[in-house]
């Protein structure tokens, strides 16, 4: 394919980019590892020397650790379930020929363009506010007692906000997948006597399986790291403290860089466990 000369030239040409990217990844990673073995309190004495695995033990034994892991998994799981189920339904709906299709499609995709901070604030103040929010007015209209969403139903609220943000992404990917379905297959199934529900189950859903896998993988990566939505709504209170948020609190609120770094290493491990787990379940969908 290429001569020895052009290959080594290519290596030299690519080197700056590779070194930059590698450095971008390795420097923070190594610094995190380094800090995690140190007692480092910036406002209270700075670098206080090596402490071995002390930070790791303290981070796990803290009462906030396991609740934060479960909060993370509940949010990720809840958002994935909602976005995929509604994503498939919306994709099927948007695939039907209808009046104003183009406009509707743009409207559906719009939430994805809103910054997480902004959308969380909009939800918090316009919808979920217990006195002035739209939901409060709706509840009052039907004579019910308004719910103070973010304190009484904090977890469902956050799942709802994040789902709203990620639904367009899922819909978009699934819509393009559904558009590539050969209509003759559906017609053949219709001739073969399959009613609409079975056509969906036996033809459309298997066709979408690869797209669903992609949505699952990409969303998991981003959802493990959600932060802004929690920061501007509950601030980690009412059981919504995820692992990411706990690390943030350890580093910035308690000013304990060493402890937070140890948490960061745990987060890396958790993300990898989830990734391996997902790959196992869905990976076979990708090679077919």
């Amino acid at each position, binding site marked *: 394919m290429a001569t020895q000369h052009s290959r080594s030239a290519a290596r030299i040409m690519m080197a700056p980019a590779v070194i930059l990217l590698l450095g971008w990844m390795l420097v923070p990673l190594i610094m995190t590892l380094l800090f995690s073995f140190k007692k480092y309190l910036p406002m209270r004495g700075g670098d206080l020397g090596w402490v071995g695995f002390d930070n790791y033990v303290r981070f796990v034994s803290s009462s906030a650790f396991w609740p934060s892991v479960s909060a993370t998994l509940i949010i990720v799981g809840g958002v994935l379930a909602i976005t995929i189920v509604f994503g498939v339904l919306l994709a099927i709906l948007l695939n039907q020929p209808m009046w104003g299709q183009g406009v509707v499609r743009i409207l559906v995709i719009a939430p994805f363009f809103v910054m997480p901070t902004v959308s969380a604030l909009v939800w918090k103040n316009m919808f979920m506010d217990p006195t002035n929010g739209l939901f409060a007015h709706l509840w009052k209209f039907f004579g019910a007692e308004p719910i103070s969403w973010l304190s009484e139903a904090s977890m469902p609220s956050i799942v709802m906000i994040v789902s709203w943000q990620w639904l367009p992404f899922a819909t978009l990917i699934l819509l393009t997948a559904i558009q590539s379905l*050969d209509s*003759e*297959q559906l*017609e*053949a*199934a*219709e*001739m*073969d*006597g*399959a009613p609409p529900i*079975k056509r969906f189950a*036996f*033809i459309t859903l*298997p*066709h979408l*399986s690869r797209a669903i896998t992609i949505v699952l993988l990409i969303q998991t990566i981003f959802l493990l790291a959600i932060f802004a939505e929690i920061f501007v709504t509950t601030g980690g209170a009412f059981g919504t403290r995820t692992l990411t948020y706990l690390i943030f609190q350890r580093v910035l609120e308690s000013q304990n860089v060493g402890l937070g770094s140890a948490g960061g290493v745990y987060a890396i491990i958790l993300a990898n466990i989830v990734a391996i787990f997902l790959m196992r379940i869905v990976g076979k969908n990708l090679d*077919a």
Partner: protein
Amino acid sequence: MGQIKLNQVTKSFGDVQVIPPLDLTIEDGEFTVFVGPSGCGKSTLLRLIAGLEDITSGHIEIDGKDATNVPPAKRGLAMVFQSYALYPHMSVRKNIAFPMRMAGIDEAEQNRRIEGAAKALNLTDYLDRRPGQLSGGQRQRVAIGRAIVREPSAFLFDEPLSNLDAALRVGMRLEISELHKRLATTMIYVTHDQVEAMTMADKIVVLRAGFIEQVGTPLELYHNPRNEFVAGFIGSPKMNLIKGEEAQKHGAATIGIRPEHTDVSKTDGMWKGTVGVAEHLGSDTFIHVHDTGLDSGPGDMVTVRITGDIEAKHGDDIYLTPQLDKLHKFDAQGLRIG
């Protein structure tokens, strides 16, 4: 079992009428071919019969029962699609079993029919493969297998051979004809290829722009085309259609003579021309003769067919004599005279 009757059937998409009122009867056990140039409405007509499109007005009768508003699955028809429409995530066995599974036929009977179909179609070794691992011809056979196991009252084929290469096409053509002889079930076959129509059909329906131009056996259409369109469409190479002075001599607006009904001589004959391209097939030779002085389209070209071989080089003079008893005459409206 298997008689299909169309009564004043029409189909419009919006304001565009693609099928004007149309009557047609397909007898039980008949192999009927719908043939016509692309866009003539033949596929639409097939889809109307299948129930995949709703008819705008008129009636469809299948097995003597009104099927106009019956959903496709209940019409007892099986269809083989141009793209085969196999289910890519299912094995061949599951593909073939799918219609039976939907109909709730018990497992033992399903397996019996699958084995039967696989044996008849040479698919036994491939039952556990996915459609993606099969060749074009094998996929085609799976699609036919999926149709057979339903034991339908009629088969519908929508250009099933157009995705195959030429050699396979000839083979599959024979297999489908064999299948028809064995099952003796009504088959409706859509194609734009008149060779497929001529070789397979009991009855050919020639369509143009939704109108039926002629219905008849292949040889009826060959010997007695009802109009210029059918004359030009049926037969290969195409019939030479000659207008103008030469046609008036025979008392017609247009005369038609098939390439195989023209005698060729290097010394004398009725028409004189120069040899253009000569296609040597071994058994036959097609010669495209230019500058004949006849009004037969661009370049005044006439095609002739000679059995065997002939020494003819590009640019040679050549003489043609039509066999006058095989001459077709058409009037100004393109309809056959006499």
